[in-house]
């Protein structure tokens, strides 16, 4: 997964670069628009356009029939049956392009998620950094030492949970910057990046060892090495509040709406039947 991420990350970095220091809304708007258009092209190329049009037309015809034959109960029931079947027929036509769209859409959503799900920390805030010790690691939790760079300080002493083999540190942010926190156990070290910036940056709230899902959902940072004494390291970034025109909405909803609007606006002149 790290290889794929190493290919995709630069691409998305370039895409988001112009919006890094702007309000997050702009990045979301442009990326959603581009995503909408791209998906439209993929949809067009991978779907049975004539079939979709036909299915939609049939569906609409049955819809009109409700009003036309409203006095005849038998015809009404027949029409309702046709509507349900027509609907399924229509959705069936969307199934194939959907399969083709799953991968690119997942990639876009993940990349957006690393930027919009959480926001970087701010000066004065505190956060909890956790490390889970690998179950095969011979050392104990007490052997793990946290080394903080300048600008970060330990707020309270670490809390160790033996059953979970987990250590939690509360850290206070004293200045902005991109910091590498180092965890040491014997001679081995593990690094985790912590970001205290104003720009729209990809954040990895956790990194893990041998965990496909974590690597997939946190493409901003490489996974832990196989020889690492930790199985997972995480930082509690605060949730980002995404606002559009003063209204607070979930970023995924914003992406959904913006890309739909873009696709809807362009489907006509791109000649795509959806």
């Amino acid at each position, binding site marked *: 997964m790290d290889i794929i991420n190493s290919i995709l990350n630069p691409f998305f970095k370039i895409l988001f670069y112009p919006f890094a220091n702007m309000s997050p809304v702009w990045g979301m708007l442009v990326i959603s628009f581009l*995503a*909408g258009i791209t*998906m*439209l092209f*993929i*949809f*067009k190329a991978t*779907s049975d356009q004539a079939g*979709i049009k036909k299915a*939609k*037309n*049939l*569906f*609409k*015809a*049955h*819809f*009109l*029939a*409700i*009003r*036309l*034959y*409203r*006095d*005849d*109960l*038998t*015809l*009404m029931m027949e*029409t*309702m049956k046709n*509507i*349900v079947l027509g*609907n*399924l027929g*229509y*959705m*069936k*036509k*969307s*199934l194939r*392009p*959907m399969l083709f*769209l*799953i991968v*690119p*859409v997942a990639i876009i959503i993940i990349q957006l998620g690393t930027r919009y799900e959480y926001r970087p920390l701010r000066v004065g805030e505190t956060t909890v950094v956790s490390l889970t010790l690998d179950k095969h690691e011979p050392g104990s939790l007490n052997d793990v030492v946290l080394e903080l760079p300048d600008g970060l300080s330990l707020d309270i002493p670490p809390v160790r949970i033996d059953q979970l083999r987990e250590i939690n540190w509360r850290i206070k942010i004293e200045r902005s910057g991109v910091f590498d926190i180092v965890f040491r156990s014997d001679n081995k070290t593990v690094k985790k990046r912590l970001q205290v910036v104003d720009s729209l940056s990809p954040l990895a709230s956790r990194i893990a060892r041998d965990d496909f899902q974590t690597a997939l959902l946190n493409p901003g940072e490489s996974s832990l090495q196989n020889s690492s004494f930790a199985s997972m390291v995480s930082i509690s970034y605060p949730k980002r509040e995404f606002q559009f025109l003063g209204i607070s909405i979930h970023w*995924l*909803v914003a992406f*959904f709406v913006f*890309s*739909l609007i*873009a*696709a*809807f606006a362009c*489907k006509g002149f791109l*000649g*795509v039947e*959806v």
Partner: protein
Amino acid sequence: MMKRILLILLLFFLVIDTQPALAYIGPGAGFAFLTSFLMLFASFFMAFFTFLTWPARVLVRFFKRRKALANAKAERVVILGLDGLEPTITERMLQEGKLPNLQKLKEQGSYSKLQTTYPALSPVAWSAFSTGVGPGKHNIFDFLSRDRHSYLPELSSSKVGTANRKLSIGPFEIPLGKPVVRFLRKSKSFWKILGDNGIFSHVLRVPITFPPEKFNGAMLSAMCAPDLWGTQGTFSLFTTDESVNPVKEGGDTSIVTRDGDRIEGFIKGPENSIRKKREQMRLPFVVQILSDEEAVIVIDKKKIPLKKNTYTDWIELKFKAGLGIKVQGIAKFYLIETRPHFRLYMTPINIDPEKPALPISYPYSYSIYLSKLFGKYATLGLAEDTWSLNEGVLSDAAFLEQAYSIHEEREKQFFHALDKTKKGLCAVVIDATDRIQHMFFRTLEEDHPANRGKETQEYKDVIEDLYLRMDDLVGRTFEKIGKDDAFFVLSDHGFKSFRRGINLNVWLKDNDYLVLKEGVKETGEFFQGVDWQKTKAYAFGLAGVYFNVKGREKHGVVEPGEEYQELKAELIEKLSGLKDPKTGEVAITEMFDNRKIYNGPYADSGPDLISGYNIGYRISWNGATGVVNDIVFEDNVKAWSGDHCIDPRLVPGVIFSNRKITSSNPALMDMAPTVLDLFGVKKPAYMESRSIFDADIDETERDHDFSAKTEDVKEKTAVPVNE
């Protein structure tokens, strides 16, 4: 089956059991899901609301129907109108055993000739069918009526005007409202009366139903529904051949430019009604010739493959009026030739049934519904392009292909309507019978003037094949008829050969009833050059002779009263029995006095005399368009070689019924009271017609003498009728 179930289950879980965010897979699929959900939601909401109000509507309908229900004799009435089905051909083929389905229908019920109207024209006849009254009450006397001030033609059944109020902004004049479309046919259709009594009807393509009426049912307009240009059908020929004779009638020739294999031109659209400066809208196109047989036409960035001698599907044509307003029509293309000259035929631009520029159905959504269900279809009243064949632009084969392709569309619509009519009326009129007979009647007579110098063998069976196809249609319909249903197959008139044309205006000129302005030897179309101050009578349309009456026409000269009556008597005497000097045959069997054949409030709106042409004759092409020259009689050499606009007694239609007809002389206009009677609805007092299942009809009750038969015509003219 298993695959289907799995698919349904998969879809179900995808839609029902997933988070909305995960269900969203790209805008395309997102759209699909969103649309699907919205449509389902709206459908169920609408259905729920309909179910909720259903008991109330049933109650209202029950009260409307209660009287009719008690006397109803049929659950469903199905009328299959085959425009122009000729009794002599039908009877011959029945005898030869070639029409088994019609034979079956005849054996189960009845077969009879069916009296037509005066004149025997589809708009007149089908209006009588719809209303149960004659032209004196329904006000349709011909395709065209004349303007009493300008003497120019107007469409008799409808008038399309612009919206009453307009908003003026710069170069634009934006209409505030829909265009005003007036229906000029008077009286009340029987389906409207049925609707008032709670009985639902499907009325498909019955002529003179444009604009569509509001009633309890669904209707698709037919004859007289215009094309996007507002005409009754104007085809286009795009060619690089500058030496080609421009199309004279029913078409438009456009010279296109050629640069190697690239052709550029534009499609003419309707007039731009939202601009103060009225101009015809244009839609540019480019054709890339690929080979002798193939090309590609690009319209509005859309590429449409063209193949020689092959029709395209219906193509959407969007004309941009400005301010984002588009007028949409549909047309088919037919590549005739790529080299040495490029020739491309385009059908008249039909109103798009999916986005109708004018109302062509009731309810408005019905044309959209049919289009969504079966695809685009011809909406023009006279959709089969007879002019293109007449003008030699399309070949016989191309015309036939077009006519049958339109027929297929109609069949689909008809059978769908039939399936949806569980109770009530389902009426359809098939035009192919009329159009194909008009254009191919020449194939029945080798010596027809239209056959001169032409090969006649290839299409000699076209008419018979047409009747065979119609019999097959009857058979397929018959299969869907239940024991409580009444089923009729009928035609509005018959068909005869049209060999010789008479220009009555020339005869009137030669006999000093029509006078040309000084120095004018030959008029242009529609009487340009006629001296109205000196003209007493003129022939107009396909069957009428009008008098230039003082106080009625703008430049009227004939005094109403005695002078009028004397003129009438004089012309009846002179024209009845008029002989063709070339053949010695009687060309006009009788001129009919309007007062003797019409009654009702509009009796005077029509012609003063109705021409009863003999078989083989009809008004000439020049006569019909108001050209006055020196030729009274001439051969008809056009492909349009069959006609019915002759003495109505010579061209009755046919009627087949699955029930026994008791009337010995049924008429087309009797169908309205017949259907009312079958549904137990009392016919209105103004209808002089009666059910064909009643005891014999007293002919004196009709508004004209229908009882006369071919034998009477022979007797009256005292010369052999050309049969």
